[in-house]
């Protein structure tokens, strides 16, 4: 994915007046069906990337749909200007309060690795406690101190984390993902009872220790194939331009 526009300061600032949704293509059947309606190639199949902008009702299109912002805007400044204009048409009813997270721990770890960001993840085997942890982490995620500086996972049961190379006990973690997002290093652990102030301090401290790897696409893919890394998608990859690779006999993640 070409993220060049999305990393520009003016686009990031304009994004604060939007709800920004970034899905992992081919990881949810319902989302695949939705995305295919938003944009598909000549074959009718969903391709690897999709981009659009929508009104708050998620029905009215505000920008031309395509595979990337470059299909709709000439440059980042043009994109940011349009975003400011679109946002001015709607009066916000409230601040954002939901936890910005992927659907599960395994996918969150992979996406954090893609973004070269630390992952904040809470673990509890108690459903009610997971609900409370999600609420606390949402407050942290939208705090001025940590806004957009880490990725978040929805609070998970310990067993869900065992689907990766990490098998975590209850608590709140800041994780430095490994290069392939299949495991990682624990940068910080906090008790589940920690309040939002303590969580903010703990996460900020871990951020100072975070050392993101430098990745280059060809080297990363070569290393991944040699090491038997194979990402299993939840739904079939349908992009006719996308590379195909058979699952190794040893199985994938």
């Amino acid at each position, binding site marked *: 994915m070409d993220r060049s526009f999305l990393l520009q300061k003016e686009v990031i600032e304009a994004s604060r007046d939007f709800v920004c949704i*970034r899905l992992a293509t081919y990881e949810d059947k319902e989302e695949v069906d939705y995305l295919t309606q938003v944009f598909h190639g000549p074959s009718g199949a969903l391709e690897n990337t999709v981009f659009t902008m929508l009104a708050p009702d998620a029905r009215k299109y505000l920008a031309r749909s395509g595979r990337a912002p470059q299909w709709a805007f000439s440059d980042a400044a043009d994109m940011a200007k349009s975003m400011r204009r679109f946002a001015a048409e709607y009066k916000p009813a409230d601040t954002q309060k939901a936890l910005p997270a992927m659907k599960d721990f395994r996918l969150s770890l992979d996406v954090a690795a893609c973004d070269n960001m630390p992952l904040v993840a809470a673990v509890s085997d108690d459903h009610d406690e997971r609900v409370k942890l999600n609420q606390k982490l949402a407050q942290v995620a939208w705090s001025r101190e940590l806004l957009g500086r880490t990725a978040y996972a929805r609070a998970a049961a310990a067993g869900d984390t065992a689907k990766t190379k990490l098998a975590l006990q209850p608590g709140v973690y800041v994780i430095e993902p490994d290069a392939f997002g299949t495991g990682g290093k624990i940068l910080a652990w906090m008790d589940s009872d920690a309040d939002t102030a303590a969580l903010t301090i703990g996460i900020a401290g871990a951020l100072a220790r975070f050392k993101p790897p430098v990745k280059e696409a060809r080297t990363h893919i070569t290393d*991944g*194939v040699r090491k038997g890394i194979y990402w299993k998608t939840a739904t079939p990859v349908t992009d006719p331009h996308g590379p195909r690779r058979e699952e190794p006999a040893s199985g994938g993640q």
Partner: protein
Amino acid sequence: MRFGWIVGLSVLACAAAALAQGPGGPPGPVEGPLPSHQGGIVWYGTLRSGIAEAKRTNRPILLISAAPHCHNVSGIW
């Protein structure tokens, strides 16, 4: 030898996908994190949670989707 071809074709395919996205060009070095003083865009990772929040807060939606792997190798957009 065959392995080199596979990786080469894979990178070319990813490059073609990137070119299809617009004038951004093929993937070179993966973009690093933002400077520590500046946070990036805050992303909801599921359609349901994002749309619900957009309706609740009456904010427009920036929607992106991408596969978090290349050649089924994870850890790279």
